[in-house]
């Protein structure tokens, strides 16, 4: 009989053990996942013509200078203006400012013009994401020039680029008169991966 009771007690004890364990609060852990893609945005240039020097008008992304040449010397007239671009990159990125022709060059110019110049150098200084950079278009040769800066954080705001053409600056020397015609350069502003 004692053996029987012992056996019964043992059986009860075994059955109760899992129930005691189950009284611990039960938890389920779930992970919510998502992703944010690398994005850069770049708006159209904005130029305050009123604050510029020697700028006639802005149409879209084209800046028209009033007079590239000085009326008396026919050499380069001092010019400056600031262009801003609303922009954003949500990752570590690179800003590259490029000059397509390395200066303002005479469009359709053929051959040499002794005593005259056919290109105008300029400088562009720019700031973005806490970084500063500069591009010098020397007008020494008609080729692309790039000036990149790495920005090691996301950035949002305005890319500010200040263009400056010095009085008398030409590819033929300081103060050399310019050949008549239309002068042009194309600047590229690029935001992308490093």
């Amino acid at each position, binding site marked *: 009989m004692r053996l029987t009771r012992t056996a019964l007690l043992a059986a009860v004890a075994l059955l109760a053990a899992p129930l005691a364990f189950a009284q611990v609060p039960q938890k389920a852990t779930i992970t919510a996942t998502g992703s944010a*893609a690398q994005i850069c945005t770049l708006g159209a240039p904005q130029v305050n013509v009123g604050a510029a020097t020697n700028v006639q008008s802005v149409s879209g992304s084209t800046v028209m200078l009033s007079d590239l040449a000085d009326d008396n010397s026919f050499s380069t007239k001092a010019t400056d203006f600031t262009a801003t671009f609303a922009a954003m990159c949500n990752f570590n990125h690179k800003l590259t400012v490029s000059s397509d022709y390395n200066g303002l060059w005479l469009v359709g110019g053929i051959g040499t013009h002794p005593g005259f110049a056919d290109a105008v150098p300029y400088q562009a200084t720019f700031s973005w994401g806490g970084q500063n950079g500069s591009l010098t278009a020397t007008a020494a040769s008609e080729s692309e020039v790039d000036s990149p800066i790495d920005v090691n954080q996301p950035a949002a705001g305005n890319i500010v680029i200040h263009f400056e053409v010095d009085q008398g600056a030409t590819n033929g020397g300081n103060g050399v008169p310019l050949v008549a015609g239309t002068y042009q350069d194309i600047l590229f502003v690029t935001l992308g991966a490093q």
Partner: protein
Amino acid sequence: MRNQLLTLAAAVLIPGLAFASPVAPATATVTLTGSIGNACHMGDLSSSQISVGTLTNSSDGTLAAISGSPNTTITGSWCNVGSKITISALPMVAQGYSGSPPSGFTKAVNYTATESGWGAPTPSDTSQGTTSGADSGSHSGSADVGTAEANTITVTLSNFTAPVSGSRLVADNNYQGTITVTLTAAS
């Protein structure tokens, strides 16, 4: 078997008493008792992850509208007594971005996690992440269920927001947040 032997023995030893007054049968009562503890069991997750997908608006990098109702279920849960169900949500944070993002950006996305299917009312909790990814404090939602319950629990995410309205999300392929559901048996 033991009782049968006793009965036979009595028949052999006392045949002459068959004519005497009947004797009341001997009885014994044994009472078995046991107890069932208050207990809850959390069932199995259909998926331990809720994928929200792409979080950013490609036009400006801000938080996109999240379509649908991202959810998961827990099947086979039970409590053999009244219970308290608690849910807590921590923000989805960019796992690969170290440090605090610059002004105008965020590395956290907040949301509301709501439990349903386990009695009523349905508790919910909203994460309280800051742009730097930290959760701003201890918080949770809970509900008391008065009776035993055995049901499927559904956890649904909604109301996705940036800590600062209009802030942009830093790029990261792995934003993660944690939702915890707890079942506690009433004591």
